[in-house]
């Protein structure tokens, strides 16, 4: 699904150049649930941004579902993001004046799905995260866990190839964190490929594979025995 070869990225800081990713080689198969771990400054967010086509790499190859991702125009990048990727952010990033349903329907709007079909599909995904009764609530009327579930429903609504979650539990307490991880595991059980960036050990162990980043290189990449979040809920 994802293939990365010798990926480099550096940021210019005045006259200095900060080398963040120093040759990343990394493959993700279809249906995997991968945790990317590392302390802050290890380059994990930069990697996720490049994977999410929010940022470009300096050198190296990136292939997503057989499509080479290189020198994309803004419009093309937007199209690929919409088609291939679903994003879940630490701070949810819901649009605060749109109801839960409208938020979930937004990526479908950019896919030019007709209004009625969009509403139905969005409702279906809201139902899957257990928030159907909250469909017409604004984000401000939802709890943190509920917001993140809406965000996950939104990321899934576009039926992406890969779900990218950047610290999805970072702003949640442990109980709600496990609820969210339970949801992510269930989505993974349905065969979806998911990448989770986290710095929490327990969250990482709820994935099937952990990739450790340190100073811009992968220091460890191991398959693990998955801890089911369901038992804590």
């Amino acid at each position, binding site marked *: 699904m994802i293939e990365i070869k010798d990926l480099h990225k550096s940021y210019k800081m005045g006259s200095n150049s900060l080398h963040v990713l120093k040759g990343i080689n990394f493959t993700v198969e279809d249906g995997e649930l991968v945790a990317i771990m590392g302390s802050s400054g290890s380059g994990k967010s930069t990697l996720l*941004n490049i994977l*999410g086509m*929010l*940022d470009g790499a300096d050198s190296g190859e990136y292939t997503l579902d057989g499509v080479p991702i290189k020198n994309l125009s*803004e*419009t093309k990048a*937007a*199209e690929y*993001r*919409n*088609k291939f990727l679903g*994003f879940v*952010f*630490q*701070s949810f*990033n*819901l*649009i605060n*004046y749109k109801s839960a349903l409208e938020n979930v329907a*937004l*990526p479908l*709007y*950019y*896919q030019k799905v007709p*209004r009625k079909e969009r509403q139905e599909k969005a409702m279906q995904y809201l139902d899957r995260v257990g928030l159907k009764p909250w469909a017409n609530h604004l984000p401000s009327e939802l709890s943190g866990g509920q917001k993140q579930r809406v965000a996950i429903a*939104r990321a899934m609504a*576009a039926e992406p190839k890969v779900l990218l979650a950047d610290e999805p539990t970072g702003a949640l307490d442990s109980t709600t964190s496990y609820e969210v991880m339970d949801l992510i595991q269930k989505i993974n059980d349905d065969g979806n490929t998911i990448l989770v960036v986290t710095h929490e050990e327990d969250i990482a162990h709820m994935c099937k594979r952990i990739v450790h980043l340190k100073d811009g290189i992968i220091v460890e990449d191991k398959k693990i025995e998955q801890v089911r979040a369901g038992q804590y809920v």
Partner: protein
Amino acid sequence: MFDRDIWQEIFHSIKNNKLRTFLTGFSVAWAIFILVMLLGSVNGMKNGFTGQFADDANNSIIIRTGSTSIAYAGFEADRRIQLRNDDVEYISKSFPKDVEYITPIMNKGASTRYKSETGSYTIRAVNPEHLFIDKTKITEGRYINDNDLYKSAKVAVIGKRIVEDLYKKDSALGSFLEVNGLPFKVVGIFEEDGRDDNAERTIFAPITTMQRIYGQTDEVNQISLTYNPNFDLTEALNFSERIENLLKRRHKVAPDDQAAVRVFNYAQFFSDISNFTSGMGMMSIIVGALILLAGVVGIGNIMVFIIKERTKEIGVRKALGAKPWQIIKLVLLESVFTTVLAGFLGMLFASLILAAIGPNIDTPAFSNPSVSISTVLTATIILVVSGVLAGLIPSIKAANVKPIVALSDK
């Protein structure tokens, strides 16, 4: 453009920022209001000027004389030039194809009495062709005819106001009116289209009658004529110049003497007025456009602010797959919508005011200020263009928002 979701978002954005939208909208509404009022006023000035002369044929020329200001052909300066009956004949014979109607005119004060009612008016001696030059409207009876002229009959055609002043209940037509002590038979009553009330306080009489009463003279105060109505402005001005040269030669006046022979051409006057008012119109548009520019900058400013405020949202939209053009469209439509809506309100308000008070204003220099459909259309186009201009820079700025920057939680 007619996407329901986009409009929902625009309405939402406006609803959430009522005061802000109102304040910026107000500047645009105010600018358009001023523009429309200015253009309406220019229209009012035009109506006022042209309305004053609505009672005269606008292809007419008036010839008057004075004293020479330059010594010429052996004569000293300050010689009085007098028009006479044969000047009228001379002009019509010199330009048989160009002159349409021509009349000599002699004006006198007229102390007038009917029974016990008296009034002070002007008696204007003319020939029958004056009817067409002055566009006099006969409401009762007839105008002066060739027979009156031939017989030097003491007949009079009087204005409506005189009838109102002097005749209480009696019928004016057929009565005898005493003018400067002599009885004139009233054969007709007239009305004028122009706004000048005094035009209807005139008594018309045959020129021959008046010349006989006032000392068997053939003197004339003024000659009025109309020329071929198919003349364009150049031909018309050229024609009045030819008349002027002809009369100057005939009366031995220096060609550059401005005082002795004066030929006044309405065509010149109308062309001056229309040049003047179209100049004023241009100036109004420029002034209005400059004021509008301030409003547009205001809206642009607010849009930049809105973009700043919504940076994160725009980042999220881009992460979810919004293309740059879709972001531009969102911002641009909001700005065009605000501009056009505000502009229309300003335009509506100004038009209502003009429609309400316009018809009540009727003075010689200013009458019925109003706006035409073309003004409204022009203003609308200006509005849409300004809306686009106001939104352009902010929307491009919005489209360039980097999702990675917008989404960083720092």
